[in-house]
C-alpha cells in the first residue's frame, strides 16, 4: 500500500507538472511567430535607434560620439522650427473632432439612403494620401478649382498661391488632412452615438432644451470616451503626417521650410542628407514629446 502510494504520488505530480508545462508550451508555440516578428521588426529597431542617436552614422560606418547629436539638436533652430510646425499641425485635431462629431450627429438620423451618405463621407479614408495630395494640388493650383471659383465669383483678381506662399502652405496641407479624416472619425463617433439611449433626448426636449443644448449636455458627455480616442488617434496622425506634405511640397518641405514638420525634418536628415545618427536623435526627442503629449491628453481626458 505505502509503496504503491509513494510511487503513485510523484507520478501524478509529474503528470500535473507536465500538464501545465504542456499548456505553457502550446501557448508559446501559438505566440512564437508574432513575437519573433515583433522582436525583429519592432524591439530590435527600438534599441538600435537609441544607440544610433549617440553615433555619427552615415548608413555604413558608425562611430560613437556621445551626446553630441543631442547638444547639437538643442541648438538647431530648424529642429525647433519643425517641432513648432508639428504643433501647429495639431490644430487639425480639435477641428477634426468638432466636424466629425457634428457630421456623425447629422448622419445618425434614420432616413432612407443615409447609409449611402455615410459611405460617401467615409470614402476619402480608403484612398491613399498620395492620390489625395495630388488631387488637391489640382484643386489648389493657379488654374485650379478653388482659384477658378473665387475668380468666377469676383472675389479675387489674381490667383492665390496656396502652395507657394510660405504663410499658406501649412494651413492648406492641414485642410487636406482634415478633409481626409472627417469621414473616418465620423464612423467612430457614430458607434458611440448609437449607444446613447434615445429617451434622454426626448426627456430633454420635454424640459425645453433646444437642439444645441441637447447635444452639449447629452451627446458630448455620452461620447466622451470616443472624443478621447479620436483626440489621441488624430493627434498622433497629425504629428506624423508625411505623405500629403511630401506630395504637396514637391518632396522639399515647402518654400522657406514652410511645411517642415518634425517628421519631415527627420526624413530629410536621415534619407536626403544621410545623417542617420542625427536623425535618430530627432526621432528619440520627438517621440518622447509625442509620448508625453499623448499621456497628458489621456490623463486630461480621463479626469474630466
Amino acid at each position, binding site marked *: 500500500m505505502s509503496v504503491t502510494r509513494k510511487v503513485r504520488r510523484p507520478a501524478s505530480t509529474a503528470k500535473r507538472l507536465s500538464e501545465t508545462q504542456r*499548456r505553457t508550451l*502550446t*501557448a508559446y508555440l*501559438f*505566440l512564437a*511567430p*508574432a*513575437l519573433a*516578428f*515583433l522582436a525583429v*521588426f*519592432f524591439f530590435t*529597431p*527600438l534599441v*538600435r*535607434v537609441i544607440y*544610433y542617436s549617440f553615433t555619427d552614422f552615415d548608413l555604413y560606418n558608425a562611430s560613437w560620439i556621445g551626446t553630441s547629436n543631442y547638444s547639437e539638436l538643442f541648438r538647431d533652430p530648424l529642429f525647433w522650427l519643425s517641432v513648432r510646425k508639428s504643433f501647429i499641425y495639431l490644430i487639425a485635431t480639435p477641428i477634426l473632432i468638432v466636424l466629425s462629431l457634428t457630421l456623425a450627429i*447629422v448622419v445618425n438620423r434614420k*432616413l432612407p439612403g443615409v447609409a449611402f451618405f*455615410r*459611405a*460617401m463621407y467615409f470614402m476619402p479614408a*480608403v*484612398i*491613399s*494620401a498620395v*492620390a489625395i495630395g*495630388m488631387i*488637391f*494640388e*489640382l*484643386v489648389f493650383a493657379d*488654374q*485650379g*478649382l478653388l482659384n*477658378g*471659383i473665387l*475668380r*468666377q465669383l469676383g472675389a479675387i483678381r489674381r490667383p492665390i498661391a496656396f502652395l507657394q506662399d510660405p504663410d499658406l502652405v501649412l494651413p492648406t496641407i492641414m485642410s487636406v488632412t482634415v*478633409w481626409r479624416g472627417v469621414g473616418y472619425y465620423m464612423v467612430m463617433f*457614430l*458607434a458611440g452615438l448609437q*449607444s446613447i439611449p434615445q429617451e434622454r433626448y426626448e426627456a430633454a426636449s420635454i424640459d425645453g432644451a433646444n437642439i444645441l443644448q441637447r447635444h452639449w449636455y447629452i451627446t458630448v458627455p455620452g461620447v466622451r470616451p470616443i472624443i478621447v*480616442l479620436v483626440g489621441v488617434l488624430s493627434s498622433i496622425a497629425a504629428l506624423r503626417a*508625411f*505623405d500629403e506634405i*511630401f*506630395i504637396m511640397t*514637391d*518632396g522639399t518641405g515647402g518654400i522657406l521650410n514652410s511645411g517642415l514638420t518634425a517628421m519631415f525634418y*527627420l526624413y530629410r536628415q*536621415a*534619407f536626403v542628407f544621410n545623417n*542617420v545618427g542625427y536623425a*535618430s536623435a530627432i*526621432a*528619440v526627442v*520627438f*517621440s518622447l514629446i*509625442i509620448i508625453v503629449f499623448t499621456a497628458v491628453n489621456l490623463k486630461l481626458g480621463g479626469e474630466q
Partner: protein
Amino acid sequence: MSSRARPLNVTTWYLVLLAVMLVTIVPFGWALLMSVRETSASPFPRNGPAQLVPYLGLIGWGEGLREAKQDGLYNGEGGWWRDYAASPTEVDESRERPAYMFPLTTENYYKVTQDIPIGRYFVNSLVVSIGTVLLTLLLCSLASYPLAKMRFAGRDVLFVVILSTLVFPEQLILIPLYVMAVNMLGFQDTFHGLILPFAASGLGIFLLRQVYYAIPDDILEAARMDGASEFGVWWRILLPLIRPGLATLAIITFVASWNNFLWPLLMLTNNQLFTLPVGLAFLRGFFSGNLRTIAAGIVIATVPVIVVFMIFQRQFIQGLAGAVKG
C-alpha cells in the same frame, strides 16, 4: 404642428447631407474633369462661362488620333499616326466650335499608360497588400488565442509587452528598420521587404483578443473533451467563429498597406516594382508640368478602390465601428 414641421425638416436634412457630399466628391470630380481635357487652360476663362461640360470629342486610343484621321494618316486598325505636339493655341484656332465647350479626350489616359506601367503597379500593390493581410491575419489570430483563452506563466507580461508597441510612434523605429533592411536583410527592391515589417501588429493582436474573449469557454471544453488538439480547436472551431473580427482586421490592414507610401518609397529603386502610391508620385515628378496626365493617373489609381469600397462599404464602416466599440 409638429407633423407639419416634419417634411420641411427632412428636406433640410437632405440638403445638408447633399451639401457635405459635394465637399467630399467635388475634388474627385475635378480630377476627373482635368483628366479628360485637351488643354491645360483654365476651365474658368476670364470672360465667358466656365467650361465644365465636355462633349464627345477625341474618343479613341492614342496620341493625336483625331489629327491623324483628319490628315488621312490614320488607316484604321493597326495603323499609325504622327505624334501630336500641337500647342494649345494652335489647337484652339483650328477648331470651329463654341469657345465654352471642350472636347472629351482619352489622350491623357493613353499618355499615362505610355509613360508608366500603371497596370503593373496595380498588380504590385495588390500582391503586397494581399500578402500583408494574409500574414497579419495568420500571426495575429495565432498569437491572440492563448492570450484570450489559455492560462500560462507570463501571459499578462507578454500582453503588456505587445500593447507597448502601440505606445511608441512609428517614426521612432523607421530609421533603424531602414538600416537593417538595407544592410542586413536585403529588403531593397523586394516585395517581402514591403510585407514582413508590417505583419505582426499589436493592434491586430489586441483586436482579435477581444473577439476571442466573446466566445464561450464551453465550446472549447467540449472540443477538447472530444480529443481535439489545441491547434485543431483553433483551426476548425475558433477561426470560423472569429470570421467577422478577421474581416475587420483584414480591411484595416489592407487599406493601410494599399496606401503605404514612405516605406515603399525608401525600399524601391527599380521602377518595375513600384506600388501604386510610389508610381503616382513618380508620375507626378516626371510630368510636374502636365496636370492632365497626372489627373488621368489619379483617376486610374483611385477608381478601382472607390468601386471596391462602394461594394463593401457596409463591411468597412461596420468593421471600424465594431473595432471602436470592442
